[in-house]
């Protein structure tokens, strides 16, 4: 599903955020990206949905070299990749419901689909009571769950999650992980960057560890450290 061939990313100047990273992630896998702050986890995730382009190396998603993708096709790539962002990226002027519905509207889903799927997914992430609140009226953890709902709502092939439990208490985190696990069992490939040792150690899934931009460990059924 996802294949990296010696991918490097150097930001303008000298910051080398990713160096010679290679990996092969099969359809339906669940992968944890771990590593210290600044090791390149978010960079890797941004490369996968083409928000950034690699300095060198090739990335295949669903068998296609996304470096070759002409720019007008990028939106269609992204429709297959749900993304949970470290900073949520919610729309401040829209309610929780509208934020989630937005992801469907933008890709032209008909109204009746939106009206059934959005409440269902909000129920799933435990925000049924907050549908009409604005993002700034939510706690940090609640915002993170809205962001997860939005990424899930159009049932993407791949789900990228950048520290989806960073602002959640342990219990809520467990709930979210159950959700991700459930999604993963329906066949969605999940790539999740995290700092949460407890989660990684409990789930025992594949772990890719980054350090200073290099993959220093790639372990099936791994632990945090």
């Amino acid at each position, binding site marked *: 599903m996802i294949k990296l061939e010696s991918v490097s990313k150097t930001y303008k100047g000298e910051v080398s955020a990713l160096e010679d990273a290679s990996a092969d992630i099969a359809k339906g896998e669940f992968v944890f990206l771990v590593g210290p702050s600044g090791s390149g986890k978010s960079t890797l995730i941004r490369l996968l949905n083409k*928000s950034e382009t690699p300095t060198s190396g090739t990335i295949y998603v669903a068998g296609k070299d996304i470096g070759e993708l002409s720019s*007008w096709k990028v*939106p269609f790539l992204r429709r297959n990749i749900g*993304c949970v962002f470290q900073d949520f990226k919610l*729309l*401040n002027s829209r309610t929780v419901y509208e934020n989630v519905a*937005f992801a469907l509207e*933008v890709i*032209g889903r008909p109204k009746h689909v939106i009206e059934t799927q959005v409440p269902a997914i909000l129920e799933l992430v435990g925000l049924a009571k907050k549908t009409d609140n604005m993002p700034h009226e939510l706690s940090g953890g609640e915002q993170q769950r809205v962001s997860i709902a939005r990424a899930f709502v159009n049932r993407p092939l791949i789900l990228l999650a950048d520290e989806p439990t960073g602002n959640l208490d342990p219990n809520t985190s467990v709930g979210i992980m159950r959700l991700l696990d459930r999604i993963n069992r329906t066949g969605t490939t999940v790539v999740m960057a995290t700092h949460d040792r407890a989660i990684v150690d409990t789930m025992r899934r594949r772990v890719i560890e980054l350090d200073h931009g290099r993959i220093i460990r790639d372990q099936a059924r791994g632990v945090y450290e």
Partner: protein
Amino acid sequence: MAIKLDYVARETAHSLRRNFTLSIASMVTVAVSLALVGSAFVVRAAVQHSTARWTGDVQFIVFMKPDASEAQIGAVRNALDPAKNNQVAKVVFFDKARAYKEFREVFRDDPVLLSTSRQSDMPTSFRVKPAIKNAELINQMGQQLKQAPGVYTVEFAYDTVKQIERVSKLVSTVILATALFLLAAAGLLILNSIRMAMFARRREIEVMKLVGATNWFIRVPFMFEGLIQGLVGALPASVAVWFLGTRINHSGGTRSSVAILQGLYVSSGEVWAVIFAMIVIGCLVGVIGSAVAVTRFLDV
């Protein structure tokens, strides 16, 4: 994927409301500049009508009485014949038919005047281009003709008409220049109000891109917003120009077939043409402004 119209309408309305004062300012500027453009053209058209009779250096016009006899007309023609009178460079005779034609032409939008005037009411006239330049001598020549039998009156241009034309040209050029300035400002404003709309929604745009919106899906509402601003600005301007047109027509001096100036007059056809042009210009300014904004600032 087709972009849904109701989506575009909703987004545009939302954005216009959010950027209310700026949208208003853009529209006011579009309105004022287009009103100036339109007025310049309408005034120029009116002045041209009004002075239509004086083309080609005609310096005075000898109007014959409607009941002047052929002999009387012949005598005047003789007196003005350039071949015999070296003070005259050129003379054009307007018989009743030709005078009526011109009259109908100038007042083509005034059915009352047209229906109450018959060809037989028209005075025949000679339009005289003198060979001499001295105003005093030209005056004398005209005054003499006034005494000739069958002559109703002699109207002198005295260069007044030229002066009026020059001033009108100057004024409308100045107005046009000001208008162009303002039009540029209006374009800039629309560009900017679109840019602001985009800026205000840059997170939204970022998210749209990340969840897979196509570029046109993002662009179209903004371009539409610009179009609307231009269009809405053009409307009050059109109304203003239309009023100017009717005002000119209602207060435009003596509307007579025998006067120096034939009355300031502008046909409704001309007014509508100017209004049409204004609306087109308004839309163009809006679309160009927003297109520039969208291509320059929307990094999609």
